[in-house]
């Protein structure tokens, strides 16, 4: 598929980073945005994408998506309007060697779908003991370093890892959860767990780990990103740290904006997440923090085979697929909480792009043409057939979404168009 001249006609252009929200055509040539608004004099379109009634926005940037089968997951990404994504290092084997990272990047590039930005392992084998070669990993393509969900038991190791990362300006990402306080736990410490007799993960598992991480970030000056916050108290700690001048960023998984522990129902393994779904009050706190721009939103796409879900609740693998649901679930939140579309889209475009430090998340003449065209009012049903990811594990299976991607461009190439396979 070659980059061709594309004219995206008649859409509502929303570019949150540049404060643009107006009717405007977009002209794409040689992989870049050639012009916005007026047709350039020498432009002739090889194809025209009819965007009437649609929103044209920068391609979505996903801060965290696990890739189990690269081709189907990246096809799912572009079907969900995602043009760039970061993947955590808890792969098999973990991303702690430059060769593995280069291989992943090469494979992803050869598919020509969404761009993949690996997050390297902060410690070797993610064991939390010895630092991995982050300088080499960074050269191989890692844009940040994390432990994914694995703990660092020894706080001195965490301090050293942050100091080393700060030396080279590497970003460190942590999913804040104290291993001991969360040990054996599978559900939020609340009414539902008390009734169902599920072992709990209290909110303090998050706040204790956050306090440690934030204090070490103050001392080391490391660029810190905290991923997948689950509690209102956790968000409050971030707010306080920001008020004290710490440049810390954070995200929440889209599922945590819509679900709560009560969605476990009668032990539904599809409602098992890491961190766990928390109370409705926590969910409200997360939503407010996203609305105010404190928190970005990621899909936390986690493919789990059906075998991994058809087990007693405490034996199920946590997580849900989300690449194709990130946008419609974001739109649902924006409708429900009356958040302007541009502000909502910022949480999945320019905000995460700034966190990752990549060129993405805006639509400007001369920049990469990574963009998404979606019909904001088009309903569709989530089924095994409508999802392109190989795994279909999501609590939203069978549910209706409003807002559907019509076309996705990566590097000026139309890598996805609705109705075509």
């Amino acid at each position, binding site marked *: 598929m070659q980059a061709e001249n594309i004219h995206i006609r008649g859409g509502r252009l929303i570019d949150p980073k540049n404060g643009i929200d107006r009717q405007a055509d977009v002209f794409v040539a040689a992989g870049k945005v050639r012009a916005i608004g007026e047709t350039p004099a020498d432009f002739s379109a090889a194809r025209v994408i009819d965007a009437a009634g649609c929103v044209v926005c920068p391609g979505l940037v996903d801060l965290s998506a696990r890739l189990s089968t690269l081709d189907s997951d990246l096809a799912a990404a572009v079907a969900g309007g995602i043009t760039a994504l970061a993947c955590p290092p808890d792969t098999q084997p973990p991303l702690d060697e430059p060769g593995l990272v280069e291989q992943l990047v090469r494979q992803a590039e050869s598919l020509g779908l969404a761009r993949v930005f690996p997050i390297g392992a902060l410690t070797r084998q993610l064991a939390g003991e010895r630092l991995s070669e982050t300088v080499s990993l960074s050269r191989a393509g890692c844009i940040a370093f994390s432990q994914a969900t694995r703990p660092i038991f020894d706080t001195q190791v965490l301090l050293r890892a942050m100091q080393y990362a700060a030396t080279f300006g590497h970003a460190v990402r942590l999913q804040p959860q104290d291993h001991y306080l969360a040990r054996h736990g599978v559900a939020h*410490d*609340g*009414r539902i*767990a*008390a*009734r*169902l*007799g*599920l*072992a*709990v993960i*209290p909110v303090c598992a998050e706040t204790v780990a956050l306090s440690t991480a934030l204090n070490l970030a103050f001392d080391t000056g490391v660029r810190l990103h905290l991923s997948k916050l689950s509690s209102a108290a956790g968000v409050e700690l971030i707010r306080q740290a920001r008020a004290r001048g710490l440049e810390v960023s954070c995200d929440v998984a889209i599922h945590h904006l819509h679900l709560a522990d009560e969605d476990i*129902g*009668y*032990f539904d393994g599809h409602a098992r997440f890491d961190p766990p779904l928390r109370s409705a009050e926590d969910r409200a706190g997360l939503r407010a923090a996203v609305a105010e721009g404190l928190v970005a939103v990621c899909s936390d796409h986690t493919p789990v085979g059906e*075998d991994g879900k*058809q*087990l*007693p*609740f*405490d*034996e199920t693998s946590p997580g849900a697929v989300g690449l194709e649901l990130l946008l419609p679930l974001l739109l649902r939140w924006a409708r429900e909480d009356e958040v302007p579309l541009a502000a909502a889209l910022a949480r999945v475009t320019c905000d995460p792009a700034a966190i990752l430090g990549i060129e993405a998340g805006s639509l400007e003449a001369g920049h990469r043409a990574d963009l998404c065209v979606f019909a904001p009012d088009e309903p569709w049903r989530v089924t095994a057939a409508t999802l392109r990811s190989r795994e279909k594990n999501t609590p939203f299976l069978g549910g209706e979404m409003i807002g559907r991607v019509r076309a996705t461009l990566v590097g000026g190439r139309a890598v996805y168009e609705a109705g075509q396979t």
Partner: protein
Amino acid sequence: MPDPQLGADGRLNHLLSIDGLPPDTLTHILDTASSFLKVSDREVKKVPLLRGKSVFNLFFENSTRTRTTFEIAAKRLSADVINLDVGRSSTAKGETLLDTIDNLVAMHADMFVVRHASSGAPYLIAKHLRRVGRKDVHVINAGDGRHSHPTQGLLDMYTIRHFKRDFSGLTVVIVGDVLHSRVARSDIHALRILGAGEIRVVGPKTLLPSVIEHLGVRVFNDLAEGIRGCDVVIMLRLQNERMNGALLPSAGEYFQCYGLTPRILSLARPDAIVMHPGPMNRGVEIDSAVADSPRAVILSQVTFGIAVRMAVMSILAGN
């Protein structure tokens, strides 16, 4: 979200938890148990209600006593009983829980009595049976993790009704390791549904769920306060493994604070009964002087347990 244990017509299709059962269903089970109690006193202790049916005792977690009571109940109903010690057979070979179920259904199982270490495991089975269209196969939860042990809850209610007649004015206290106890949860739900006057729980904070009051109970950390004026005292078994972690310092200190002695029991009403799901740890949660006193109705619980399990099996089988 429909309760998986109830059919579309509201009838009991499985017994998975007391939580969510209509009061009439509970009362119906207790009344039915009452009629079965007489069967056990007859010379020929059998009725033909489950003749030709196969009841599979599926114990993923060891419990000789509970398994035996289900076996006796099924045999008194003339069912064929097959005991599977699953912990040592199929799952050890890597077979999943639902694979095991599919195999046993193919062997024409009519009823599964399931004990499992994971909360909710019987729900997984019940939902699976619905998915594969086998609503003629019934599941009885014989204890799942910390969640539920509904036949124990029912036999406890039977015992209380037998000795106290009416639930409305009763103050019932549950003492001990509520956090890990499926018996406590079952009793709390049953007492609430049957309209007990006041339900209390007593224990150290390490052994109580942090938000247990949401289940409709009053929480006490002091046994003397919690037991004062009670009509029914339910003591919970303290598992030995609770001593290994940081939940409790020692069995001795636990007994000092939460052991039921004659002196502590004297704070309850003079006609208060003492219950225990068994097996008892004498000198840990209960003093022998109490356990062997006429106030203790622990052996009555065992006898009633057979009748209650017969009632549940008979009702699920459609009698």
